[in-house]
């Protein structure tokens, strides 16, 4: 073949997107950019600019943690959970990540015309059970109905308030070089559980979602006197995205050990088949904690004593440096662990 026969060419790029894409909600770089370009400049204030899972407000000497979250999941019921449990635990967990004890939740329901009432009853019963598990009452709410085809059965938005105990100050800016990074359990169960029941991807042998309320283990850490610097629950974008967010907001570098990060065989196997990296797969009941390395051993012991963090382990350390996350691989090499553009896509082969 002659040189001319090879066309050394490539496609034109797609520049800035002028409409919302699914990747804008994927927990990756596009979502971060959306927040930085659209929301932060519009609403900018000290509480928002702290960029934590909850805003912490000083109110008459008390510190109130305040957060809100929207829940859209298809299908509504999946192995190990449902949209109702997610809506309660997700908001409870955002409060817990500020070191707060959850006090009360609100819930707004956006219901699609034609939704079977029986299904709504199941979701509501599940929310009630979840609120009891988390020990937090649901004190106010709202209901709207949209035309058939304009919703996906049920969308739920919850908000929550909690009290931050005196002396507790948990946020990215508090992370110190040399802090130990603890992970509360194995990663990737929720994302794989959802994929296993999604149209077009159904497979068997998937694990149950890890969705769980995390105020318990966080409370235990704080009560045991551990000096917790920062907490982050692992949701969309998984462990890798959470580490990147903290590294960026704390302006520190992070190194984690691949072999220290637990992944159960059912998750590892599904990820291998689908071409996904479990470090980017969603969780709904796992968190990372940054704390002084000298207290790591005690913190692991405390966490392991709690059922929702029984698999706690240390996965790495923070260091001074510039907002990068590095993974030390099992064969000895290191590589950057970057934010993805949007959600991971299953590979062809």
């Amino acid at each position: 073949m002659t040189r001319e026969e090879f066309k050394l060419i490539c496609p034109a790029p797609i520049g800035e997107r002028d409409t919302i894409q699914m990747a804008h909600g994927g927990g990756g770089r596009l979502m971060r950019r959306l927040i930085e370009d659209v929301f932060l400049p519009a609403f900018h204030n000290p509480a928002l600019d702290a960029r934590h899972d909850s805003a912490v407000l000083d109110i008459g000497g008390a510190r109130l943690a305040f957060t809100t979250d929207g829940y859209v999941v298809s299908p509504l019921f999946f192995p190990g959970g449902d949209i109702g449990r997610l809506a309660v635990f997700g908001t409870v967990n955002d409060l817990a990540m500020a070191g707060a004890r959850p006090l009360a939740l609100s819930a707004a329901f956006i219901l699609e015309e034609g939704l079977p009432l029986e299904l709504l009853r199941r979701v509501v019963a599940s929310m009630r059970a979840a609120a009891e598990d988390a020990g937090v009452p649901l004190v106010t709410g709202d209901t709207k109905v949209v035309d058939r085809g304009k919703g996906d059965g049920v969308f739920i938005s919850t908000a929550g308030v909690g009290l931050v105990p005196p002396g507790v100050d948990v946020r990215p800016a508090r992370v110190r070089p040399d802090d130990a990074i603890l992970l509360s359990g194995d990663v990737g169960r929720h994302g794989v559980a959802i994929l296993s029941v999604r149209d077009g991807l159904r497979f068997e042998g998937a694990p149950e979602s890890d969705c769980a309320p995390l105020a318990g283990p966080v409370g235990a850490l704080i009560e045991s006197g551990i000096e917790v610097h920062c907490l982050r629950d692992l949701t969309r974008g998984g462990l890798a995205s959470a580490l990147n967010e903290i590294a960026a907001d704390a302006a520190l570098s992070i190194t984690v050990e691949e072999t220290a990060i637990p992944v159960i065989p059912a998750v590892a196997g599904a990820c291998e088949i689908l071409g996904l990296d479990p470090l980017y797969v969603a969780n709904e009941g796992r968190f990372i904690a940054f704390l002084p390395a000298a207290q790591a051993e005690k913190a692991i012991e405390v966490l392991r004593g709690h059922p929702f963090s029984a698999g706690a382990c240390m996965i790495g350390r923070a260091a001074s440096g510039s907002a990068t996350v590095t993974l030390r691989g099992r064969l000895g090499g290191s590589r950057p662990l970057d934010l993805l553009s949007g959600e991971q896509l299953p590979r062809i082969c």
Partner: protein
Amino acid sequence: MKYLDEYRDAALARRLADAVRAATTRPWRIMEVCGGQTHSIVRFGIDGMLPPEITLIHGPGCPVCVTPLETLDRALAIASRPEVIFCSFGDMLRVPGSGRDLFTVKSQGGDVRIVYSPLDALELATKHPDREVVFFAVGFETTAPANGMAVYQAKKLGVRNFSLLVSHVLVPPALEAILSSPQNLVNGFLAAGHVCTVMGFEEYRPIARRYHVPIVVTGFEPVDILQGILLCVKQLEEGRAEVENQYARSVRGEGNTEARRLIAEVFEVVPRKWRGIGAIPMSGLGLRPEYAAFDAERRFAVSAITAEESPECISGLVLQGVKKPAECPAFGTRCTPDAPLGATMVSSEGACAAYYRYRRAS
């Protein structure tokens, strides 16, 4: 995990890397054909374990990367039609056509769905008899049997609202195109293990003979790849040029005869354009005339859509192994996975994306 952990064993990998070092006396350039192998090499840092004499060149074996622009534009046109449910493997959705991608079509109202198997797309067709279900059949010989099975079943079951947009490509003609190029740098190949699981490796023997080049059928885990490299280096050092099978736990000489029979039943060999490389004669698969009724290009009359690619990036050189991703001035700056200039940056199997994801820091 069984069949995974043992092939990622650090001590065994180091022993193999030491054996490669001991066997190497001269510089050799070895091309891993498959994007899955490239991904493993960069993810596990295998190239960093090799002696400096060994250069790994990343081959064109990423189906997403080599699907031509005009096929993508045809896919976008079909997916935009209101009666169509357009089904695709996940990583095709972000590949840019002329100005937009399948995600954009989806956000504009197109019914675009990710499926894991073409048989799931066929099931959608039976569930939605009032819609046209189209499956985007891209890939090498690996995905051809399942895609062929979907069409075969559709014909047998009389499912009329199902069709394939076919852009299948074949490995051996691509190897020949690379070897016969005056720019060729490749001394030896690691052939793609799962392609050979389907096709066997007899068709590689004439290539090894004609171009006097060793071809080692190789798997995808670190230990597989290091062992493939070791076998290839030994052949090069001894002046041999044979076809060897490192991936014997999966590959037989004759391949999977049932799968090959099905491919031959449904598909015929056709000329095919490769994105970034150009036309390669008899390098693809198209539907046989008996299955023409299931050809989405005909059904939706999109054959007239053609597209010329603009000379923006060097992915053609990367796909041939002439350049490394980091040698591109746009790499990591004007060209990133968020705003890819070329297909090799789009797919997670693409060489540029693998380098971006795993190598940027170094």
